[in-house]
């Protein structure tokens, strides 16, 4: 098969676009998934814990 400039442009304008959209949906779903909320809230507060020793 001959891959020329137009083939690549077609590929990036169709599949490339959908792949980026699908990726954006995955990231948004992960970020706003309700059950992740508690984990994120814990993560942002836990770095303020003054304890300076590794957990054993």
């Amino acid at each position, binding site marked *: 098969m001959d891959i020329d400039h137009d083939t690549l442009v077609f590929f990036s304008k169709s599949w490339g676009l959908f792949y980026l959209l699908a990726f954006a949906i995955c*990231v948004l779903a992960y970020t706003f998934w309700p059950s992740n909320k508690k984990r994120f809230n*814990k*993560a*942002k*507060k836990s*770095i303020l814990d003054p304890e300076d*020793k590794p957990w054993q």
Partner: protein
Amino acid sequence: MVSTLTRSERQAAIGVSVLVAICGLAFAALGRHDVLEIHGFLILAFGLLCAFAVINGYYEPEPTDERLASYYDAPIKAGIALSMAWAVFALFIGVWVASLLAWPNLTFDQAWASFGRLRPVHTTGIIFGFGGNALIATSFHVMQRTSRARMPDQFSAWFVLIGFNLFCLLSVTGYLVGVTQSKEYAEAEWYADIWLVIVWVTYFILYVRTIARRKEPHIYVANWYFLAFILVVAILHIVNNIAVPVSLGHAKSYPVWSGVQDAMVQWWYGHNAVAFFLTAGFLGMLYYYLPVRAQRPIFSYRLSILSFWGITFFYMWAGSHHLHYTALPHWVQTLGMTFSVMLLVPSWASAGNALLTLNGAWHRVRDDATLRFMMVAAVFYGLSTFEGSFMAIRPVNSLSHYTDWTVGHVHAGALGWVALITFGSFYTLVPSLWKRERMYSPALVEVHFWLALAGTLVYIFAMWNSGVIQGLMWRTYTEEGTLAYSFIDSLVAMYPYYIARTLGGLLFFVGAIIGSYNIWMTVRAVPLAADRGSDIPDSSAVAVAGE
């Protein structure tokens, strides 16, 4: 340092050092008719020095298992010291090259002191020497603290830190004797590049091993930024530096890419070096040290995740905006321009997230110069990403490209964002790492802050003026259709701005010296029970930013 290594790690350290020394000897022999000989002997001396340092402490008692109850901080401390030493050295070179533009006689007729050789010494010294050591040190700190786990061994971290500094040393000494690949921010030749790959892969493995040992189930967002920085820099470095040396006995190599492909690969590398070396890693610092210093959680954790993926995916495509109006296909230029404009969204999300974290604690920003360093860094991050997106637009680029405006833009990022966030992080980190109540002198932190801010502002205003005037003079035509100004005319017009930028750089340089002195005195002299001054975070009120 050696006393913290176990017996088997000491043996490994000696083995690796001797191996490096043997490689150096081989290069010195093979390259005896080339400048490579100098680097061969340098590598030999470096390897022997490391080997002797370890042998010297070989019979010190081994560390006990008690070490496992604390984090491994020794390489972090060394990294901070190395970073500040590189900052002072490379800022001095920066002031020197800036002076060369106003007073060209300052080369003193020496080939090694010509502008073309000193400039990469300045850029490499700042980006890799200062920035790289700061990133390695803070990433070692953040990865252990946020994972609640000690790094898996003591040797890897030292190999990464010392190996990285060997790379910096080879780069900088190489430029002075005329060794260069002529690729911006990737000037180091093939043997230094191969060495950096070994060091960098070890760095990545060490980071992942520490994360794998984590006791905290969630990986804090700062680690994502640091990991993106390490992983992407490895990919960029390898692809951009694929080259064939003339022979094993020659420093010179030729890239496998040619023509416009070479240019595209170079600027894909170059812009992502800005994105992942000078942005992602330093955002990792911002997302950890800013909340810790302010004693307030980040305004929106979700926003930090969204901006992470935005930055990671958009930046990859932006490099071609460096090649507007070149032989690069027009659609590739447009692609780079479009992604550059889109980048404004995740960039401002990060800058806004940082500033909104401080919302409600402005009195602390007013009183605490360390927090102010980080606040101003976030502002400059917002400003320079806006400016970058703007300059990537093709018609704007036709005015700004090849002028001092670009130089001003880079320094708004490097001085205003990268250096200020680093100093803020160091002033947070140093007292806690050395178990001091506060920095030796909060007043000197204040002096450093104002010198750094004044220096940055003087520098970028000079370059904005200079760049726009340059751009306009180069495109002004007479009624007859000829250029109104010669190149020399524009050079004469630049003269006052070149003096101003030297002054700005000098202020910043003096600030860095004061900062180094303050860190040094904190480590050496502060009594452990000093008064709690204004230089510590107020932990009494842990406020929750709204989300």
